[in-house]
């Protein structure tokens, strides 16, 4: 795991030492008031740091280019990123519960992982009065332990070269005419089970129903790919015609020339909400609030929608209509987003992985 921006301590040292080097020259020309103004601004800059735990890749690049550089740098807040996969950062949060020098001021995780961190008692309930933009968050995305940043939904994604009529239910995957033509991503194994439960009308948190669906699907010889990118390659080559995937990801594939479109299951969709929270054990809570406030700034939300295909979680994003139609969901669709039973899903995840690995994937 690495922090990929310059070392804050080194930066602080350079600022202070350059100040010290200049001090004698300034002292000759400036009065006492000038000196005191200089030293107070140097002190403010010295405290302007926040460390954000995040995924690497696109998400971190956009946090940098849409939030840190344009919105916070002018306010003299330096943002450092601690990048790593979700499980590594969750382990870090657990390990640093009592640490004297915790590494994260802001933790970015998906909704299911964030709920687990909350269940572990690691998150500080955010003081919404300190996050001005929190007033504009859609109420359906609000929770007491984190702030929603961006979201998308799990939808049916199909190859338009082979499937002309958009399927209205993922139960279409059980149709013998799609034998060997349905692919799933190993990365989102638990969501595949949840989507199975959803499409048979049992809600998104019934892994027993999801397992039963996958048992039926297995008779139709689906394929499982090791990564989302491998699913995209299989869709592009025509090896598979249908999958379930985040709408945002399907948009990226579309832009990359994969002939796909997406359809909303008549039973609804499963949301994925990328959230930000402040660990109980943190060093810069005031700066953490400033960072989260900037995450909910309409300017940065538009950037994420344009570049990453995820929809804003705030009412006042001012997203252009065309972009909203592309990345967002209609009001009727948003209403059909399922609320997830996070505690149940967490407790059943291990047993479901056992089924997925030792039964479902075997022989496919």
């Amino acid at each position, binding site marked *: 795991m690495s922090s990929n921006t310059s070392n804050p301590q080194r930066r602080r040292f350079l600022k202070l030492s350059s100040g010290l080097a200049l001090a004698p020259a300034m002292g000759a020309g400036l009065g006492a008031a000038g000196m005191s103004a200089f030293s107070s601004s140097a002190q403010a800059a010295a405290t302007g740091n926040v460390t954000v735990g995040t995924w690497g890749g696109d998400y971190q690049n956009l946090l940098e280019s849409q939030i840190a550089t344009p919105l916070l740098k002018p306010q003299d807040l330096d943002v450092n990123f601690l990048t790593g*996969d979700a*499980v590594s950062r*969750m*382990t870090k949060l*657990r390990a640093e519960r009592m640490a004297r020098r915790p590494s994260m001021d802001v933790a970015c995780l998906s909704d299911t992982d964030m709920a*687990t961190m909350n*269940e*572990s008692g690691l998150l500080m309930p955010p003081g919404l009065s300190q996050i001005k933009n929190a007033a504009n968050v859609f109420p359906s995305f609000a929770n007491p332990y984190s702030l929603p940043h961006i979201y998308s939904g799990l939808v049916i994604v199909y190859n338009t070269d082979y499937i002309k009529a958009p399927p209205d239910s993922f139960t279409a995957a059980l149709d013998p005419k799609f034998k060997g033509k349905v692919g799933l991503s190993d990365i989102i*194994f638990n969501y595949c089970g949840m989507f199975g439960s959803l499409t048979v009308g049992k809600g998104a948190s019934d892994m027993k129903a999801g397992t039963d669906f996958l048992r039926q699907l297995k008779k139709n010889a689906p*394929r*499982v*790919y*090791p*990564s989302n990118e*491998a699913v995209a*390659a*299989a869709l*592009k*080559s025509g*090896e598979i015609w249908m999958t379930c995937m985040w709408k945002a990801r399907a948009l990226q594939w579309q832009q990359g020339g994969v002939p796909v479109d997406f359809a909303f299951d008549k039973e609804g969709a499963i949301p994925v909400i990328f959230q930000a929270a402040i660990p109980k054990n943190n060093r810069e809570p005031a700066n953490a609030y400033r960072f989260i406030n900037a995450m909910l700034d309409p300017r940065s939300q538009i950037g994420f929608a344009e570049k990453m295909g995820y929809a804003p979680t705030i009412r006042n994003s001012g997203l252009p209509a065309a972009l909203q139609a592309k990345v967002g969901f209609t009001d009727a669709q948003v209403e059909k987003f399922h609320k997830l039973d996070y505690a149940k899903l*967490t*407790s059943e*995840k*291990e047993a479901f*992985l056992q089924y997925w*690995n*030792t039964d479902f*994937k*075997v022989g*496919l």
Partner: protein
Amino acid sequence: MAMAPSELPKRLPIAAKRPAGEPHPIIGAGLAFPASIVVIIVMLVPALQLFRYSFNRYDPVNTMKAALTVENYTRFFGDAYYLGVLGTTLWVAALCTIISLVVGFPVAYMLAKTQTRFKSLLIILLVFPLMVGNVVRAAGWMIVLGNAGFVNSLLHLLGLADQPVRLLYTPFAVILGTTGVVLPYMILTLQSVLEGIDLSIEEAARNLGAGFIKTFFKIVLPIATPGVAAGTMLVFILCMNAYATPVLLGGTGLTMMAPAVYDQIAKTANWPFGAALALILMVVTLIGALASNMLIQRGYAKRMV
């Protein structure tokens, strides 16, 4: 501080017992001490920690609960799936090791014996793939072996196949990819040993009427046995612990131990079971490597007597 003259005679008799020029044994041990501490911290402590974790109980919210249970081990040995994964890992590792030895030996021999001025260039070419990560190399194989990849396009162009032939996500792809990863290690290890063989011994054998094949099997191969043992052990260990190649090229077609460990740790944060799997992999790898080394060395001892 200056030494008091009275202390000198006490030390001299001890020093006098050592042969001239040999340092005090405590100095040698003392010099190795810091390095030993580093080795213990870097290698032994994490392994011991894993060992302890493997007796804990899984907790979906807090990763694990302290306990002293063998349930993670009984789960492994009682589940045909995980035993199958271990079996697959062993046969894939053994096969890749044998292929890399058979394919790598002639190349190493040629490199060791060649007088060409391009020898350094050839060795650099051999080392070159090691500078690229396994994931990148696996991505390359995905492009070559995929349904719309190079091989299938060629087969289609030549009219040899109407439908794409499934090459990716098969044991074949994993064996090809893993062998490709470990081959440079085998060649470089063998080459360094073969370089040390005196050419005049081979010439003597040829002078006495032995053909190339007889010279190879009776002279070169027995002398190169330590290199074969070292290369085999190194490559076998690398194959047993392969992660990226089996995941990216094997898909559901083949599951090996390292991806199974990753699944437990990264997908459900089941550290206790993941730790048990990791320890089983570590112990089996160690036994396999030592066994292959012992077999080869025993053969070497018999031949050289």
